[in-house]
């Protein structure tokens, strides 16, 4: 019996393959976008974990100096002599032009077992590893990137994260020009009877990094992606809900007949659930494949974003994880169940003797609309409250969610209210308005989906546009030197700077010199600058004391970037632990940098960090002399072409990084809008099938099918336009929340909001095109419908 019930119910789809395709498409798209985002997140988090696990950092505590600078070798020797099992690591970054490599030098003889890691397993040639010139271990991906010159032989291994390399401590010391260890790894099994390490040394004990810095930094980015994935999933579920709702209405008569002929309600519900499960599993499988393709194609962009925005090294390749696929299928089933729950409850509650005529689909009562409007009001209040008084990233995202859901819930009431204001001048117009009002409940879900997609689009593009505008202006101010030069080595650079300083056409040489350190417990860079109007005249400061540049030049002050300033809640005048401590004299914006940064005078920098020497410098020169100088540097001084770049190239590269950063967001934006258009199409198809009883009488009393079809098309466009009009303020509010709340919490900087009316016009046109495409099929069908089909309505109405 169950089989007969299932096959009878399923025969519906045989007769309506298009509807089945739409349902499956909705489910597949929802699964694809959600699981794609999850795959990207999982891959990135896996990369962070692998990075954290390098040398067992996720398991081993370490000893380091309070300011993160190398510790004296004598400290290490003293601890070893006292019997403590500690192992030195020399760590640093090798830079050569654009080539960068994170180098970790270890001592395999003293390193704890957990630090040996997969990299040192297997067939490693230990003799070559120990003896000069040494051996350097890195992954395939790292080896394929541009690498600094002067590296020893490379051995490929999977156990090293991208962008990093492991070598013997002596090789690392030689390559980095640093003889003292950067930190000491602590073996968890210390000999019995020794005093705790904290009492034996002045070095700082840092616990294992279970959640590493990068994971913490990038949380907001992944949360952003997840939010987008969730939005797409929800919009996809609107399609599923519409398709299931339509099937439910169409099969009311079949369900009633089945029950009348002796199928228990339980069996009908079981049959419907099994059918849904089968459809969800097949669609989910398609969605998982699609999700994998989407994720794999977005992965290089995401890797670029994470590298550009956070300095996080993630492989641009996606691995297939069966667990991910299984969880995506589970999510599809859950989503399909959520979308179908209303239809299943409706079936369970449907009286056996209910009329089988399809009623207007999902006709919301006035009570439900009032409840929705009240919920919308409540959510808006929550959003406003959080915007004004909330703090933290979670509060910012809850504010976003409340704003979006609230505005979506308010939509039907606003539409109905708006239609109530229209005063038609003739009977036909009156019918059109009344008929539209009757359609609002049926279309509201699809229109909500469209509203969400449009608002997200406006919000995100306003944010990105504002960011681009500010970033471009900021680049113009920050990248003001005419030429940027990278020497072949530190010594070479010094010679070059000294030579060029005496050239008559050169106005100034500005060394670009920095040192890595830790400020407030987290990695940071300190830059040293010379006293020159390039900085004092052009650099934008967000806030400063009087005459900050003079204090910088005197070595009595420090400038900090906005990220550090906001993250640590600093104020002007606060002392930053650089050298003996310097007061903050100003704050500068530093877009795109994940870390804290500080600027001091060049002298102060070299005093504090004696090892810091520039390999890059900028040349201030008359712009007319730039080509000649660039040619001279390449030909006379033998610099490779890539080592001499002009201002325009630097800006272009920076903008490329910027565009790459928002590539994924843009792609998800477009996909979400596409899904929303599909949701609208599904709902219009649904209504087209159920609305014949409303249209037939108007046709019968003398309105042509063509005219009715034009009214349908016009109505779809009007509803889309109205939805856009409501989406615009919601989108702008969204942009404000993103710029003023989420950005500050997530990235540490705030941007001024700019408006881009041209973009709105384009989006408006896009919304109208989407609505036209969605309405085209149902409209054409109505224009061509056989008169007999309309006449049949009257025959069935007895």
């Amino acid at each position, binding site marked *: 019996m169950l089989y007969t*019930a299932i096959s*009878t119910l399923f*025969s519906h789809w045989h*007769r309506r393959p298009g509807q089945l395709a739409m349902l499956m498409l909705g489910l597949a798209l929802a699964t694809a976008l959600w699981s794609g985002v999850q795959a990207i997140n999982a891959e990135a988090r896996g990369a962070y974990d692998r990075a954290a696990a390098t040398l067992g950092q996720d398991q081993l505590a370490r000893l380091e100096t309070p300011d993160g600078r190398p510790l004296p070798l004598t400290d290490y020797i003293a601890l070893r002599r006292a019997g403590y099992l500690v192992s030195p690591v020399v760590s640093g970054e090798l830079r050569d032009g654009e080539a960068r490599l994170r180098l970790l030098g270890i001592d395999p003889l003293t390193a704890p077992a957990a630090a040996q890691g997969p990299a040192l397993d297997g067939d490693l040639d230990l003799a070559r590893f120990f003896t000069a010139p040494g051996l350097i271990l890195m992954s395939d991906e790292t080896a394929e990137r541009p690498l600094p010159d002067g590296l020893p032989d490379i051995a490929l291994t999977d156990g090293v994260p991208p962008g990093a390399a492991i070598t013997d401590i002596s090789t690392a010391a030689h390559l980095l020009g640093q003889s003292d260890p950067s930190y000491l790894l602590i073996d968890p099994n210390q000999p019995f009877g020794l005093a705790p390490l904290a009492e034996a040394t002045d070095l700082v004990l840092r616990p294992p990094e279970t959640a590493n810095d990068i994971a913490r930094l990038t949380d907001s980015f992944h949360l952003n992606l997840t939010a987008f994935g969730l939005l797409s999933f929800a919009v996809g579920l609107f399609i599923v809900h519409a398709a299931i709702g339509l099937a439910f209405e169409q099969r009311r*008569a079949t369900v009633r007949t*089945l029950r009348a*002929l002796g199928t*228990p*309600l339980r069996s009908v519900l079981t049959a419907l659930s099994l059918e849904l499960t089968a459809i969800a599993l097949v669609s989910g499988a398609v969605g998982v494949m699609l999700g994998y393709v989407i994720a794999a194609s977005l992965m290089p962009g995401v890797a670029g974003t994470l590298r550009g925005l956070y300095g996080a090294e993630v492989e641009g390749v996606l691995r297939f994880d069966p667990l991910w696929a299984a969880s995506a299928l589970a999510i599809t089933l859950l989503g399909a169940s959520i979308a179908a729950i209303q239809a299943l409850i409706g079936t369970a509650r449907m009286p*056996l003797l209910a009329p089988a005529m399809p009623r207007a689909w999902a006709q919301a009562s006035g009570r439900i609309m009032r409840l929705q409007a009240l919920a919308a009001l409540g959510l808006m209040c929550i959003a406003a409250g959080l915007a004004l008084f909330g703090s933290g990233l979670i509060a910012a995202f809850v504010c976003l969610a409340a704003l979006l859901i609230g505005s979506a819930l308010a939509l039907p009431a606003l539409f109905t209210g708006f239609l109530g204001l229209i005063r038609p001048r003739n009977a036909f117009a009156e019918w059109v308005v009344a008929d539209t009002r009757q359609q609002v409940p049926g279309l509201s879900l699809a229109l909500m989906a469209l509203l969400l997609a449009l608002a997200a689009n406006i919000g995100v593009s306003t944010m990105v546009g504002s960011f681009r505008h500010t970033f471009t202006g900021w680049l113009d101010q920050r990248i003001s030197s005419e030429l940027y030069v990278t020497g072949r080595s530190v010594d070479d650079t010094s010679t070059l700077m000294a030579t060029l300083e005496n050239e008559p056409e050169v106005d100034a040489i500005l060394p670009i010199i920095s040192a890595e350190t830790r400020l407030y417990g987290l990695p940071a860079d300190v830059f040293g600058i010379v006293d020159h109007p390039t900085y004092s005249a052009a650099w934008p400061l967000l806030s400063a004391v009087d005459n900050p540049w003079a204090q910088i030049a005197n070595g009595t002050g420090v400038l900090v970037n906005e990220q550090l300033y906001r993250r640590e809640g600093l104020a002007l005048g606060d002392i930053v632990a650089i050298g003996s401590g310097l007061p903050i004299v100003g704050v500068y914006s530093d877009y795109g940098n994940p870390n804290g940064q500080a600027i001091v005078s060049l002298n102060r920098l070299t005093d504090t960090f004696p090892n810091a020497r520039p390999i890059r410098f900028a040349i201030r020169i008359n712009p007319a002399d730039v080509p000649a100088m660039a040619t001279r540097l390449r030909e006379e001084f033998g610099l490779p072409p890539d080592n001499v770049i002009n201002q325009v190239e630097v800006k272009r590269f920076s903008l490329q990084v910027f565009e790459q950063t928002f590539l994924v967001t843009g792609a998800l934006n477009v996909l979400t809008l596409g899904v929303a258009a599909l949701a609208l199409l599904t709902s219009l198809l649904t209504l087209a099938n159920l609305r014949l009883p409303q249209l037939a009488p108007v046709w019968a009393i003398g309105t042509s099918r063509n005219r009715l079809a034009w009214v349908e098309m016009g109505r779809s466009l009007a509803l889309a336009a109205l939805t856009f009009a409501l989406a615009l303020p919601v989108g702008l509010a969204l942009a404000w929340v993103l710029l003023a709340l989420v950005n500050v919490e997530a990235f540490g900087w705030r941007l001024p909001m700019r408006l881009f009316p041209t973009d709105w016009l384009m989006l408006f046109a896009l919304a109208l095109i989407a609505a036209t495409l969605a309405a085209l099929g149902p409209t054409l069908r109505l224009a061509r419908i056989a008169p007999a089909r309309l006449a049949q309505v009257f025959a069935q109405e007895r």
Partner: protein
Amino acid sequence: MIDSDLPLLNLRDICKSYGSTPVLNGVSLALNGGQTLALTGESGSGKSTLLHLAAGLDQPSDGSVHLDGEDIGRLDDAGRAQIRRDRIGLIFQQFNLVPSLNVAANVALQAQMANRFDAAFTAEISDRLGLSDLGARYPEQLSGGQQQRVAIARALAPRPELILADEPTGNLDEETGDIVLTLLLELVAETGAALMMVTHSPRLAQRLSREVHLSRGQLAVQ
């Protein structure tokens, strides 16, 4: 097993109200196996309601419905569904065919649900009802008379003991209605089923072995 002393269908003091509106008021009626009974009455007299109660599609407000001695009001939804599936053939005025199944599948539907599908017997009734050439068509491609014949074939295919027909010719013209009823009565006689048929037409009612008239929720003539 059918106890020959017990009526096949026994409706005892049936009352039914919708809200505060009474529809049936103390109706008692018995129908023996093989009997045919016409239930007549003006619109709103409660004929269809009585038929639905007899089929277990609805529950009486008071009184009881016994099928072969079993009080079907005491059964749950699944129990009543089983009675309908295995023992009752239902014919509706609106045909109630499954639109997504073709004629052959519609005819076989209830018999297959009851695990009593007999291909030869189904083919025979389809042939007798003139449906043999229509097997691949869908309900929307049939005329009203053809749809009603499919509904009759579906009701007869599982060889039910009781057929309940709600104005089976109400949607048909007089000539087609006569033909359909003749076929129905022939097949009922051949299968030995009992038939209770709701009709407005005194002319059609006369063709059945018994006629009862409902007026304002009560039996007027028995």
